[in-house]
């Protein structure tokens, strides 16, 4: 940790006054209210989702709940993973531009530009994705199908722009500012002495970055990517608007039949669902919650481990 916490001197020596008791009680209460809210979310999802686990196969339309949720989870993970494949290298490059490449006076405005991407509401990303990006991507997909069609990812048929790949691109754009802003903080914290030492030894700028910045920032970048992944996993409206979701399990990224994602599926199916189908949707929400939880958990854990080392 960069800064010290309150010393014991403060709490142990000070006279306990009513104001103190009330204030510490309030702040402790607030902290535990957060725990209660989180527990409330988890309990609510579990209670409401449980009937889906015990539901008969006839009601589900699949043999069991795992088979029902799996295609959605598959789609969620695939879309988010591709988004990360696109966003992480871009974000590392961008973070380097801001921390090491851009002239100092430009770095601030560039960072602010990237942060603007984070300020765009997801429903606007949805509008953009469906009205601008998807039609623009269609020729690209047709080219991919014609030239790389032998790969399972690009089998096609490329008849629509609203594919999983388009959705992933939208997700990548949304995750980009998150990954960039954390990465650039980490890169900027690389000890100057390390960098100067590398340069003094005759390293080029790229070698300096490879030898000092990357090893120092590796855990930070990984945890940044994890947090970006968390954002990509939970994104709802943009995907619901952009993706042509049919619920297949397929690695084919450019056809008109794509796996759906959990969050988008909830948004699309919730209004027309009754009875056990609502439970099924909430159970899928629980699955998403757990996956996001694990991803964030991993991200923070890697980050904290990195901090101890640094």
């Amino acid at each position, binding site marked *: 940790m960069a800064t010290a916490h309150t010393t014991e001197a403060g709490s142990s020596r000070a006279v306990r006054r009513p104001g103190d008791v009330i204030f510490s009680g309030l702040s402790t209460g607030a902290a535990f209210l957060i725990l209660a809210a989180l527990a409330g979310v988890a309990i609510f999802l579990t209670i409401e989702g449980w009937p889906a686990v015990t539901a008969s196969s006839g009601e589900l339309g699949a043999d069991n709940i795992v088979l029902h949720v799996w295609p959605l989870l598959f789609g969620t993970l695939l879309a988010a993973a591709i988004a990360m494949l696109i966003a992480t290298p871009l974000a590392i490059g961008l973070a380097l531009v801001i921390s090491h490449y851009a002239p100092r006076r430009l770095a601030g405005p560039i960072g602010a530009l990237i942060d603007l991407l984070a300020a765009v509401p997801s429903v606007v990303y949805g509008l953009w994705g469906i009205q601008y990006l998807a039609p623009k991507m269609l020729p690209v997909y047709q080219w991919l199908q014609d030239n790389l069609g032998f790969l399972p990812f690009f089998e096609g048929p490329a008849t629509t722009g609203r594919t999983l790949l388009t959705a992933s691109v939208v997700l990548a754009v949304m995750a980009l500012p998150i990954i960039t802003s954390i990465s650039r903080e980490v890169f900027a914290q690389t000890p100057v002495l390390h960098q100067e030492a590398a340069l003094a030894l005759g390293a080029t700028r790229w070698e300096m970055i490879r030898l000092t910045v990357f090893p120092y920032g590796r855990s930070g970048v990984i945890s940044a990517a994890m947090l970006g992944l968390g954002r990509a996993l939970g994104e709802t409206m943009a995907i619901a608007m952009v993706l*042509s979701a049919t619920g297949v399990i397929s690695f084919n990224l450019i056809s008109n039949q794509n796996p759906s994602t959990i969050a988008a599926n909830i948004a699309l199916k919730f209004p027309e*669902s009754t009875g056990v189908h609502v439970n099924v949707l909430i159970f899928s929400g629980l699955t998403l919650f757990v996956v996001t939880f694990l991803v964030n958990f991993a991200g923070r854990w890697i980050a904290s481990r990195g901090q101890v080392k640094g």
Partner: protein
Amino acid sequence: MNRTSLRRTLVPAVAAVAAISLTACGAANEDSNDSDKGLSGTLNGGGASSQEAAQTAWRAGFQKDNGGATVNYDPVGSTGGREGFLDGGFAFAGTDSYLSDEEVAKAKETCGTDAIEVPAYVSPIAVIYNLEGVDSLKLSPQVIGDIFNAKITKWNDPKIAELNDGVDLPDADINAVHRSDGSGTTKNFTNYLTNVAPENWPHGAIEDWPIKNGEGANGTSGVVAAVKDNPNSIGYADASQATELGHVEVQVGEGFVAPSAEAAAKILEVSTRVEGRPATDMAIDLDYKTSDSSAYPVVLTSYLVACQQYPDAKTADLVKGYLTYVVGTAGQQAAADNAGSAPLSAALADEALKHIADISAK
């Protein structure tokens, strides 16, 4: 920064913001003088999103006459509307498929007496397509079933060519677009296919698209956009929402009929009621198999569901007033003008008005 000066600037700023928000006035088009005209209060309903365009027109018409009344309609979908109505969340509901027998029983529980179910919005569902250079396309229900069931995958399939003499059909894959969200339009469309071409469409009438073939799009606008953006696509949507796209002429009997309000109204005339329903229930059993070539059979019939009795007089009056307006000539004409629907025939409207007139407080 000096803290007192900070406080000195912050406090007035906060006060100013608070004052603005407190004195905020209504929108420029909401005249508060209207509020003593006619009925007042808030009426909440919801349901089929297909009715939304018509509901917008109805709300506007009703609220102009009743300045103090506010009607809200959540386009949450038919199932959501029925469920909201049955558990008391909505005072009235719009639904694209009439209540099931179970729901009729449940509605009786909720309302205390039989629920009222009246047709309110009848609109043709167009089978829309985007084919360069093809201005007119004729399809039989069997072929439509095969296309959406992914049995016919090429536009120049002999089965399509056979029906379209002289039309230059491209050698391209068919991109069949369906609704990815649960939808009453899907239910009405698949209901039609199930009745007319059960062998080509074996999946039944269902709100959620049952198979994994074809492209999924969110909402009517999504389907329209998908068909418009992607050449060689075909889809189905409320005809009034897809005026720029080509509409398939569907085979009825010996002829081919394009979707139109008149042809859609015609199908209601030749259809009969669902049997075994309460007297206040006007559920219609559409005669999809009609061979009358002046009728367009692929229609969306959307109903309004309400109770006969409401616990408080205010809600009862509002529901009664609103539904009377909707089913009446003015309301049906407003929907026809603004949503392209087919006005109810005089006979149907009169019967509906009779049921609505019975709405009262407990």
